């Protein structure tokens, strides 16, 4: 009897010990999850997707944008939080052999136009002015709600742009351009008006890296499909439709995104397109971003993941200053950058994004200067006579 008693007591003790340990493990697990809640500081997600080209031969830009739109919707961002700017002249173009569709893969697997595309800025409304007004919020009061970017200081915004670009500019619909300085200033306005928590800027154009060179506002991460001086290449030539269906960078980004679901923990460091596939060298800029990219989840920008966990335990939340400091130390950033900056020229951008400073080529003196000197010499010899030339030669 005593043996069984002691055995049962031992069993209960063991059970309680195990329960307590499990409890503590569970408690710490809950605390870990709670900690994860505060990994990022955003509460809502927005997306601004812009295709700046029109005309049939720019089919691939519309397909790019619509593919990103589709992925972003699939991962949870609703139409009310997406501002989609498209020329929208592909699906119903008389040249389209498959009317009312836009394909992104040449086996015609995926009609990205679908049934539920909501284009907010269509056709000739895609202008630089409208784009900047959307970003900065300076919109006439009559603008419908679907055309506004109603973000606040806890919004993570994904801005995706595609089209034809060059060194320092992006062409809007064959008639105007937006420069990288304008874009940087627009983002600074957004920061000062507290219109974003963090911004992910993706651009898929030729020489795309030039567009993020001038950013100077905090919390911006930028990705581009090619460096300055490089062209971004198109992909998926489709003889049945007669045009290229997608660009390489977006195609591989999309292949990557197709494997993401709202619960995945993949981070931004995995979003990389190797040169063998993309042919151009994709670039990125993370110096303005306060978190380490490896701590940034893809779904922080591409999806709208509600941070809701149901638990029956109480959790003690402590401000763990060690974690905060260590994350700062890991970043190894210059503290000066945290101060609000006023002008775009302050940053040593070339060093930040590891570019070699360009050697200025020597040009021979211009026509005006040459002409001026020729005039002076002619007048001299006319007044003093041509025979004086022999004293020179």
């Amino acid at each position, binding site marked *: 009897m005593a043996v069984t008693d002691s055995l049962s007591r031992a069993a209960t003790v063991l059970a309680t010990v195990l329960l307590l340990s499990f409890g503590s493990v569970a408690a710490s697990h809950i605390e870990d999850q709670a900690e994860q809640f505060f990994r990022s500081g955003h509460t809502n997600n927005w997306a601004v997707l812009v295709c700046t080209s029109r005309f049939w031969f720019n089919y691939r830009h519309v397909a790019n944008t619509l593919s990103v739109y589709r992925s972003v919707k699939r991962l949870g961002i609703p139409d009310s939080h997406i501002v989609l700017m498209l020329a929208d002249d592909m699906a*119903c173009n*008389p040249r*389209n*052999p498959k009317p009312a569709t836009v394909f992104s893969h040449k086996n015609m697997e995926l009609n990205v136009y679908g049934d539920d595309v909501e284009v907010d800025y269509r056709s000739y409304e895609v202008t630089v002015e409208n784009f900047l007004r959307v970003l900065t919020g300076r919109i006439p009061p009559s603008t419908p709600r679907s055309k506004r970017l109603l973000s606040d200081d806890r919004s993570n915004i994904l801005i995706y742009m595609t089209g034809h670009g060059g060194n320092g500019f992006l062409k809007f619909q064959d008639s105007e351009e937006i420069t990288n300085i304008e874009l940087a200033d627009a983002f600074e306005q957004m920061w000062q008006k507290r219109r974003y928590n963090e911004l992910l800027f993706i651009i898929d154009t030729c020489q795309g890296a030039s567009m993020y060179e001038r950013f100077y506002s905090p919390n911006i991460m930028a990705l581009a499909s090619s460096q300055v001086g490089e062209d971004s290449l198109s992909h998926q*030539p*489709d*003889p049945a439709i*007669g045009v290229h269906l997608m660009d390489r960078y977006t195609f591989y980004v999309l292949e990557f995104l197709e494997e993401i679901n709202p619960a995945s923990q993949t981070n931004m460091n995995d979003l990389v397109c190797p040169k063998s596939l993309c042919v151009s060298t994709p670039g990125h800029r993370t110096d303005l971003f306060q978190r380490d990219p490896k701590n940034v989840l893809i779904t922080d920008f591409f999806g709208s993941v509600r941070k809701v966990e149901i638990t029956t335990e109480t959790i003690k939340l402590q401000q763990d200053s060690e974690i905060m400091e260590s994350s700062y130390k890991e970043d190894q950033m210059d503290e000066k950058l945290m101060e609000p900056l006023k002008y775009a020229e302050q940053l040593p951008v070339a060093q930040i994004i590891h570019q070699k400073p360009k050697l200025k080529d020597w040009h021979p003196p211009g026509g005006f200067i040459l002409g001026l000197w020729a005039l002076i010499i002619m007048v001299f010899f*006319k007044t003093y006579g041509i025979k004086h030339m022999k004293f020179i030669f």
Partner: protein
Amino acid sequence: MGLLSDPVRRRALARLVLRLNAPLCVLSYVAGIAWFLALVFPPLTQRTYMSENAMGSTMVEEQFAGGDRARAFARDFAAHRKKSGALPVAWLERTMRSVGLEVYTQSFSRKLPFPDETHERYMVSGTNVYGILRAPRAASTESLVLTVPCGSDSTNSQAVGLLLALAAHFRGQIYWAKDIVFLVTEHDLLGTEAWLEAYHDVNVTGMQSSPLQGRAGAIQAAVALELSSDVVTSLDVAVEGLNGQLPNLDLLNLFQTFCQKGGLLCTLQGKPEDWTSLDGPLQGLQTLLLMVLRQASGRPHGSHGLFLRYRVEALTLRGINSFRQYKYDLVAVGKALEGMFRKLNHLLERLHQSFFLYLLPGLSRFVSIGLYMPAVGFLLLVLGLKALELWMQLHEAGMGLEEPGGAPGPSVPLPPSQGVGLASLVAPLLISQAMGLALYVLPVLGQHVATQHFPVAEAEAVVLTLLAIYAAGLALPHNTHRVVSTQAPDRGWMALKLVALIYLALQLGCIALTNFSLGFLLATTMVPTAALAKPHGPRTLYAALLVLTSPAATLLGSLFLWRELQEAPLSLAEGWQLFLAALAQGVLEHHTYGALLFPLLSLGLYPCWLLFWNVLFWK
């Protein structure tokens, strides 16, 4: 004192120019010819490339498989045509309607200036038949044209068959953004001209054509097709059009890329391209010379030449069936055409990105205008230098006359003597122009008189009158001096030659700007003898040279050169016959299509040449 107003310095400068003039002229002439010959070599000639972004690459899937249908249509067409003798309009209408096009006809008639070999009567009338394939989802604002010219001599029935089969295939596609007009014309180019004039609502050549009932929008591009056999060994492309106009180079690039994609053998001027062999540049030179000769003649070498006047880019594709082993059937040709039309469908604007003025040493090489113009510039520089030399000689002679006598005051010595010179110049000028006018007007006007008095046909009468007036001009100088009395004989001819040189330079310059080949060809032959012509020296030699380089002799020579380059050389008798035929065609084409070679030569260059003849025989 300035360089030009100081008499001492001016005389020094004048002596310098006069001393160096002859070597400079020779150098400039040689430089011009050498520059032209150097056009086939790499820095001056470039590979062609597609400039229009909207047309992109050859990324289309050609699905045309109607080879049998095309052959069946062709056989039917040939049979009906043989039965009726003219274009079987009713059958064409029926067939086009069955294929699904909107069909319209247009009748036209034209009174020729004189009946030529092909038509053998004054009045030519016919009917054009055309079907319009409307774009399913677009407004009919733009169109493309596929045309087959059917004359009485050329058969072209396979082309009609292919046109109908292509129309049937195109009708089943939904991706057309432009209307497509399928045009079959009667009497070859006369019908095409009638249709174009009625389409654009103009009347340029005096054709009477009934107005068109069906229209399709602004024509963006046109392709003319000539096929006379079921299988072809190569496709020859013709680009030179009326008065030397050329289509936009992008259209040729488009054709060339589809040739490469389909593996078709495509030739330019009948020669396939071969730049890898050792005499690649030599072949390039042959092709270049052939293009220069064809462009200089100003004839529309196919229906496309008439489209170019309305700034519609157009090409003619000719199927050639020669002795090669590998043959292509109608499906291959049809696929190339389908690809071309599908790519042209993508256009948003008229073709304007690529060159409008170019020379082609080969199908994939071109020379742009900025690089070939210096050749004619060097040649015209010779005329300028000679004119400068004469001007200085005239001034020196004038000053030399006055100086020993002591100039009475600061009055300019030249105008009184120059005034006499000018008066003596007017007469030769007027007489030469009158001869030119006679050469232009009399042959056609006087054909009836000629046929009454001589046993010749009208066409022959026109040509022989032409030659007679031309030769009569040679007799002029021996009679001019009876009308004009000269006081200062030496300076008279110098002044006349000065005026003639400037006149020639102006004319050749203007011609070279619009039709470089014609300007260059005439400059090559006329410039040296014009520079050399003077009454002193070996007169018979100069006379022979001048006759050999007169415009008519240039025409004769270029005919021989042309046949030589095509590897079908002519004997003298054949050459002469061809020359007479070319003269008749030149006059006829001027009246029917507005070709400018005949008026340019008769009203412009022949009087100029007569002035030099006058200078040579100055007494």
